[in-house]
């Protein structure tokens, strides 16, 4: 056989398919979309005990072959070998949650009845044990007529035995299976109930502590208070905890600039490295600690099972603007970055709901805005306290976050009555069990996020900064003339400035906005590069914040902040929106409405501030 056999992981949502997939394939994964649908196809290589390579496919979670969503449709088509361009899986690995057998065995029976070579992975046996359940895999295997292998995906336990059974699966004796093909859903449920009971050797009520925890965390009064306290701590931590690490990175960049200046001859190459690469890219990389802290909170909330509770608590509020608690999870992720946020909208079953959530996700203050906000706030908002433990700078930042959230809710309300009009969507969601997040999973998740950020800094942001530096540095200015004014970039900015001047933007801002189309952070690196090229020694010593404070008026600075609350200056967001909505229509709508709002609100802010005499 020349083709690599396909082995499909299939089962209910949250059974641990993805965890098992990760454990079996390690880093050898390929993620793409199934053709024609926005359903993710996750495939990866592994090897059977004999050395035979296999392709593992992690199918979307499903409750039944009778699909209720596009994701489930893909699953059912693939396992039945009807999906065009997908090979019929050689072996089905049915993943079930050991602590939730009664529910998961319903779909498992339906899959086994297909008559394909099948192995059941009895996953999460660690959680079952923790909750006082002792199971008998052999009894379950006899009842189902297929091999059952206990596994703990997150600890990589049971993987060898599972691969062994996958290898043997094509030679399975199908006569052991009972004729269950024509069972109705209630009959299957009854069978699942009996099989689950038959497989349980002993059971204590240790799982009650889940309900105790829920009693507090879902309490109508205490629940929201705890959630908001948690979110408050999260945003505080992003600033308070990151500081020492930011200083560390800043010092490192500083000493690299010093090193280049000391070792290289003066000239164009040295300027390129110091002003372009190190100053530009460095001004973005310093935000890595804050991004990691934000993602650490979000990942812990997700992996501990709390995120679903947060969605429950937020459902009522989201319902006011025509969304559901489901939208809360992608929107919260969007505070770190809109890209994973928009991808997380796949969990929203209702298409209109999903589209609305995608369109408002860029209004959540993502970490790419932090550099912009932090620089402007640092330069213009005095660092004094306005109450016990409340700093003015932090308050302004909080206000900007709030501005984005309120804006998003208002936009959702309008969208739900116009372009995404439709019946109010419901909210149906299974609450996963609580658990302490496995440290390894957490670290892998953090590493993936950090890697994406650094890759962005090394590619998009690097390129944008370098191109800008070139455009800024040539042609060379006559003595006495400003280099920025004389440069190609300066000329381009002159044109844009005609449009931007009425809302209080100056020449440097117009100049920074163009490369910042690639990514918001570039606005900061662009300003840093601009002032580094044009500045004399004294001004360079004052740093970017010093230069801004000296050169910009307060109304201009505030207008700049208001602009960035809305402006969709992120190529990746536009690209991912195009991919997730299958076309250019919605990214264009998103661009138009967000730039429109940015212009209007920056204008209002500027003229308001001028009128107030700020």
């Amino acid at each position, binding site marked *: 056989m020349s083709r690599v056999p396909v082995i499909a992981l299939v089962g209910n949502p949250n059974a641990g398919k993805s965890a098992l997939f990760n454990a079996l394939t390690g880093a050898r994964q390929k993620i793409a979309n199934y053709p024609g649908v926005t359903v993710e196809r996750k495939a990866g290589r592994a090897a059977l005990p004999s050395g035979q390579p296999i392709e593992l496919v992690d199918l979307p979670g499903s*409750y*039944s072959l*009778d699909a*209720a*969503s596009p994701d489930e449709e893909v699953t059912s088509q693939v396992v039945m070998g009807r999906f065009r361009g997908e090979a019929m899986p050689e072996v089905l690995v049915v993943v079930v949650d050991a*602590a*939730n057998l*009664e*529910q998961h065995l*319903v779909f498992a029976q339906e899959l086994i009845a297909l008559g394909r070579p099948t192995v059941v992975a009895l996953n999460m046996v660690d959680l079952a044990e923790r909750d006082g359940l002792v199971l008998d895999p052999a009894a379950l295997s006899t009842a189902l007529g297929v091999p059952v292998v206990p596994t703990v995906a997150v600890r990589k336990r049971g993987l060898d035995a599972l691969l062994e059974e996958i290898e043997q699966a094509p030679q399975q004796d199908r006569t052991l299976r009972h004729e269950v093909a024509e069972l109705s*859903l*209630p009959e299957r*449920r009854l069978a699942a109930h009996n099989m689950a009971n038959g497989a349980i050797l002993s059971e204590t009520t240790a*799982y009650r502590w*889940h*309900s105790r925890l*829920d*009693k507090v965390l*879902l*309490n*109508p*009064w205490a*629940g*929201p208070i705890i959630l908001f306290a948690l979110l408050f701590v999260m945003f505080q931590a992003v600033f308070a905890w990151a500081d020492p690490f930011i200083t560390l990175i800043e010092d490192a960049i500083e000493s690299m600039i010093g090193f280049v200046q000391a070792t290289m001859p003066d000239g164009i190459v040295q300027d390129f490295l110091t002003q372009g690469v190190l100053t530009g890219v460095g001004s973005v990389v310093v935000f890595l600690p804050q991004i990691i802290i934000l993602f650490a909170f979000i990942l812990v909330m997700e992996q501990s099972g709390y995120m*679903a509770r947060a*969605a*429950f*608590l937020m*459902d*009522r509020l989201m*319902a006011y603007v025509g969304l559901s*608690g489901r939208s809360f999870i992608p929107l919260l992720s969007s505070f770190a970055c809109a890209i994973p946020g928009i991808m997380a909208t796949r969990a929203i*079953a*209702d298409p209109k709901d999903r589209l609305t959530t995608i369109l408002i996700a860029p209004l959540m203050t993502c970490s790419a805005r932090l550099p912009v906000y932090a620089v402007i706030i640092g330069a213009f908002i005095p660092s004094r306290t306005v109450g016990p433990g409340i700093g003015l700078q932090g308050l302004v930042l909080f206000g900007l976050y709030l501005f984005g959230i309120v804006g998003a809710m208002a936009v959702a309300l309008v969208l739900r009555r116009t372009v995404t009009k439709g*019946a109010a969507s*419901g*909210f*149906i*969601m*299974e*609450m996963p069990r609580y658990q302490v997040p496995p440290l390894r999973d957490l670290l892998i998740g953090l590493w993936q996020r950090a890697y994406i950020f650094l890759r962005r800094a090394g590619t998009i942001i690097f390129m944008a900064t370098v191109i800008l530096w070139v455009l800024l540095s040539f042609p060379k200015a006559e003595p006495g003339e400003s280099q920025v004014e004389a440069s190609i970039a300066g000329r381009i900015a002159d044109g844009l400035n005609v449009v931007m001047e009425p809302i209080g933007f100056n020449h440097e801002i117009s100049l920074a906005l163009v490369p910042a189309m690639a990514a918001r952070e570039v606005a900061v690196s662009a300003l840093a590069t601009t002032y580094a090229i044009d500045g004399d020694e004294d001004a360079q010593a004052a740093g970017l914040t010093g230069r801004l404070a000296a050169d910009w008026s307060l109304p201009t600075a505030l207008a700049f902040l208001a602009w960035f609350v809305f402006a969709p200056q992120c190529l990746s967001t536009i690209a991912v929106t195009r991919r997730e909505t299958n076309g250019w229509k919605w990214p264009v709508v998103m661009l138009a409405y967000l730039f429109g709002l940015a212009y209007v609100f920056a204008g209002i802010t500027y003229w308001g501030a001028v009128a107030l005499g700020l």
Partner: protein
Amino acid sequence: MDSQLTLDQIAPGSRAEIISVAWDALAPDEAKRLRALGLDEGARVAVAHRGIFFGSDPMAIILGRTTIAIRRAHARAMQVKHP
């Protein structure tokens, strides 16, 4: 009067058995999802929690070892009796 009792009227902490579901009153995909989760005729459930504020929406329903969040509108379509 018990025949008029629906799941949304059950107080948190109380149990109920679903005796029939008005599937037609629900969106087809949502009906499918609820059935797939096991919220169907004959299911013995307990109402665990109600959402924040006065709408008491959504509700958390315990079914076997799982907890499922649904909207009140879904619960209203489920006729129940006290077990």
